[in-house]
């Protein structure tokens, strides 16, 4: 069905009893042209772009739980394209441009809110580094503004500008950055993909790959039976190593836990998304009023979807150091998600060494903002068997070639990215 002000009015007049399910909960068929493993944002976006941009509609999305039950529903909903390295800069801007038209494309309200993302700086050296990043963004056609302290005081007068350790000198602002409603992104892609004939199959866990004598993938074994296909796309960040292992692959990835937090709802306080990198804290305010915040990954391998208290303490200390008044706000909930931490902090979107198996992995803790861009370039790769130009550097063999995309400069130590 098509959503509009008229459909809303019609449903309202009938007491909201006429709404149909947003998308079709399908049962698996014997065979598809393309099977996507993983019914999160990236998997569903890939299916939608395959159907809408590349004309491949005989597609299944297999999800072991329910759609959006993994990291799509566990992130802190931030969208931005303020990256500094070739490979990342163009890709994340492609994604940002797709965010800007997503709701019209999908006919679904994803509550995309371009309220601005500010990265704070605390020293002359950090200001220079941010100025450089801002300039990199601007020569690539991305908006960036370097704010001094006076400008920042107008926007956020409540910051602890005179913190003894990290005095706030200013910030790098991307006005087009902001937030989006994460569940609605999943539902929107599911809605639009389903309308084009994509089968979304839940409670269907992939248990193995079916391969012919040459090793080519010819299907997948699942908890709901065997499904034949010539092309399998894997979008299972957090579990990439486990799924790839079924095809005999080892990946340059470790799974780590990242925690996120939300406070009780308060009146409008934060106008932007704000990151305090020096203090391992970032925060925005949801439309419900809760402060949504987080910090660093816990730092040890984990598949547990829950973290430990030292990071809770560290994040809350960061928040208190920057915005002392939030000490009076009560913490409402806290949770964890599994991050696909790659060896250089950047993603992998590439064909795998196994013919017919395509990889979309290694999103670290930055996968949400990439959702539409990831879906688009992954669909491009699957449909045309070659990388989209904005994803041409996200190759699996870049580690072997020494062509890392390491924004943080940490080297092959995933828990430090």
């Amino acid at each position, binding site marked *: 069905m098509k959503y509009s002000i008229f459909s809303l009015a019609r449903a309202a007049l009938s007491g909201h009893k006429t709404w149909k399910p947003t998308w079709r909960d399908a049962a698996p068929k014997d065979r598809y042209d393309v099977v996507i493993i993983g019914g999160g944002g990236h998997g569903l976006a890939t299916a939608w772009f395959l159907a809408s941009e590349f004309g491949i509609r005989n597609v299944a999305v297999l999800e072991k739980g329910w759609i959006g039950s993994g990291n799509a529903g566990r992130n802190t909903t931030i969208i931005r394209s303020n990256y500094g390295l070739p490979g990342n800069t163009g890709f994340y801007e492609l994604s940002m441009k797709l965010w800007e038209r997503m709701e019209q494309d999908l006919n679904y309200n994803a509550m995309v809110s371009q309220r601005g993302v500010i990265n704070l700086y605390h020293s002359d050296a950090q200001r220079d580094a941010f100025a450089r990043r801002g300039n990199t963004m601007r020569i690539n056609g991305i908006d960036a503004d370097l704010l001094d302290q006076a400008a920042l005081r107008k926007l956020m007068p409540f910051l602890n500008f005179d913190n003894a350790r990290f005095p706030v000198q200013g910030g790098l602002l991307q006005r087009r950055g902001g937030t989006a409603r994460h569940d609605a992104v999943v539902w929107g892609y599911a809605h639009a993909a389903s309308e084009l004939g994509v089968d979304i199959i839940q409670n269907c866990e992939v248990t193995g790959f079916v391969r012919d004598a040459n090793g080519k993938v010819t299907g997948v074994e699942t908890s709901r039976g065997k499904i034949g296909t010539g092309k399998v796309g894997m979008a299972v960040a957090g579990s990439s190593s486990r799924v790839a292992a079924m095809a005999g692959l*080892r990946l340059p*990835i470790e799974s780590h836990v990242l925690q996120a937090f939300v406070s009780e709802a308060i009146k409008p306080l934060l106008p932007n998304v704000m990151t305090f990198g020096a203090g391992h804290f970032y925060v925005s305010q949801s439309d419900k009023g809760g402060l949504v915040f987080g910090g660093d990954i816990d730092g040890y391998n984990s598949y547990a979807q829950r973290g430990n208290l030292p990071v809770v303490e560290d994040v809350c200390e960061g928040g208190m150091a920057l915005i002392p008044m939030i000490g009076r706000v009560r913490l409402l909930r806290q949770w964890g998600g599994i991050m696909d931490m790659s060896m250089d902090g950047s993603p992998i979107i590439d064909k795998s060494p196994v013919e017919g198996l395509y990889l979309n992995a290694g999103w670290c803790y930055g996968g949400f903002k990439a959702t539409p861009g990831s879906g688009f370039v992954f669909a491009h790769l699957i449909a045309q068997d070659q990388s989209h130009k904005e994803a041409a550097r996200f190759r699996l063999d870049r580690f072997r070639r020494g062509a890392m995309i390491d924004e943080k400069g940490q080297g092959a130590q995933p828990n430090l990215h």
Partner: protein
Amino acid sequence: MRIVCPFCGERELGEYTYLGDAKPQRPAADAGEDAVYDYVYLRDNIAGVMSEHWYHGGGCRAWLKVTRNTLTHEISAVEPTAGAGAAKVGV
């Protein structure tokens, strides 16, 4: 998660620093590029019981080999090790 250091006793996680999987062994100096690539970049990324290196920087500064389940965070063994560098070359 608390780790029972064999020298200091049970201590909170904040005292420790994580290095990672204890399995990769540094290849010999004349090993080929494939072996080095494998050692530096590829990981088993085990979902289950894993042996790993931790450093007790907030205590005795000893390197420890911790056997831990990555699905539950349950720790089943902690033993001193010769330092991550030494351990990785099999000393």
